């Protein structure tokens, strides 16, 4: 899967969605309203209580926008391939991907790149711009670099989580409950991690490292002390995403290999 071929697939997807331009744009609007309501609730919460564990509204807004932004970018790549995998197995269309000379993982991602996350990007981008302009951040080359790396690496973490869920669902069960649980787990990383117990902190740091998409780098940006884990681990953010994505990719590929064997 070369970048040119990938881009070709994305253009096809966009053209496909634009066939139903009205429905596509309305869908973006509806999702935008959904996320706006979520933001409004958190804003109302901070409006009433001023801070959560010392984090004020601009800082919480930074966590929220990082969470939505990285999810939107990650999900644009892996959400549709992973949720549609089940149906493809049932209908036998997965074979059309497997017989292609390109790597099945990247083929699926290219074919099913989801262009429907534009409202997420717009909304999260706006909130983040406001948040980083308002929150007390000391801007140095290192902090700018960390923020950019967080968006890239965080998106990989989110994409990897979806990939692992897809692998699990491919082998064991229907997937929608798992994706719903992931949505629920995403809410953990929209708040300062210290308010949660030891177990959630360990899980979100060492097992499913979603906290590296929001909390750990944000804590460095606003010079917050460490919690269960020391504050400096936020600097590991640029490494965590690629490594976790590689693990997810390997796991998925192994799951698919097994499927080929069973198809015999």
């Amino acid at each position, binding site marked *: 899967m070369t970048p040119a071929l990938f881009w070709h697939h994305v253009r096809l997807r966009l053209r496909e969605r634009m066939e139903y331009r009205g429905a596509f744009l309305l*869908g973006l609007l*509806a999702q935008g*309203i959904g996320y706006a*309501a979520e933001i409004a609730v958190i804003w109302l*919460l901070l409006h*009433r*209580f001023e801070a959560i564990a010392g984090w004020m509204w601009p800082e919480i807004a930074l966590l929220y926008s990082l969470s939505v932004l990285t999810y939107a970018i990650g999900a644009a790549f892996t959400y549709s391939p992973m949720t549609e995998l089940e149906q493809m197995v049932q209908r036998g269309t997965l074979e059309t991907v497997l017989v292609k000379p390109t790597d099945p993982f990247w083929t699926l991602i290219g074919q099913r790149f989801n262009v429907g996350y534009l409202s997420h990007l717009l909304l999260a981008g706006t909130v983040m711009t406001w948040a980083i302009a308002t929150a007390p951040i000391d801007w140095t080359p290192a902090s700018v670099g960390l923020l950019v790396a967080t968006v890239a690496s965080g998106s990989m973490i989110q994409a990897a989580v979806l990939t692992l869920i897809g692998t699990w669902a491919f082998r064991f069960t229907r997937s929608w409950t798992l994706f719903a649980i992931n949505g629920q787990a995403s809410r953990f990383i929209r708040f300062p991690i210290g*308010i949660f117990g030891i177990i959630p902190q360990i899980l979100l740091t060492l097992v499913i490292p979603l906290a590296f998409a929001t909390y750990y780098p944000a804590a460095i940006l606003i010079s917050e002390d460490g919690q269960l884990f020391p504050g400096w681990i936020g600097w590991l953010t640029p490494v965590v995403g690629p490594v976790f994505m590689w693990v997810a990719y390997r796991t998925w590929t192994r799951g698919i290999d097994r499927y080929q064997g069973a198809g015999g």
Partner: protein
Amino acid sequence: MVARPGGDAVRPIRTFLAFLGTSFRKNLAYRSEVWLSILFGLLAIVIQAAIWRALLGDGAAEGITVDDMVTYVIITTVISAVSLHRLVSDVDERLRGGDIAVDLVKPMHYPTLQLADQLGRSAFQLAFVVVPMVVIAALTFGIEAPASATAGAAFVASLAIALLVSFTQGLLLALLAFWFLTTFHFIWANGALLTLFGGANLPLWFFPDALETVARLLPYQFVAFVPAAIWLGEIAGSELAWTLALGVMWVAIQGAAGQALWSAAVHRLTVQGG
């Protein structure tokens, strides 16, 4: 069935219960996945409880303590597990797949049939998800008893209202699919209003005054805030009577609108079917 005097009055109820039972058994097929649903609910409770612990500590705001909020969160999570909104996606799917034709042959008014179907699903959720979830949550975080006997009784009434408000709302959204052939946008927009005005994440008593006034008139509060607030005794006395009356009114309004839309939808479907 042998015809007997008065049999006709009983039959619709029997048919209704039969459909409800069928739906319950249909859901039993997914019982191996209930632990995931339990986990889903527990995560919601863990997150919310942690947030309120951080916000309230050992103190109180507007007379509300952490223990009150934990109970509040458990109750709103339970209600969202049993609420009947889900029929939107069911109807949408059956409409696009054409299965709706089979439903229309069934010997029952279609919206009532949907109610039986959704209640069967709720009964399953109650038995297999809600009960274990509440037991675990109560053992882990503790749950307060209803504020009084009146509060307990009123809570049961408010639960019935919650089911009917969510059902009639889901029905209205589902029927829009007969015209627009998609419900995605309406589900998101309605979900947004529920997130903001339902009060599951932020109880109405913490709202700014103007917004609280608006929220207290809308139907969304009945699917989260009202039952929990009644349980805690925060809605009591004459306010309780007014609130329940408003809930019944919203059920009637949404129900009547649903019935009107249904009559029009059936007509439309016949035309399409040719």
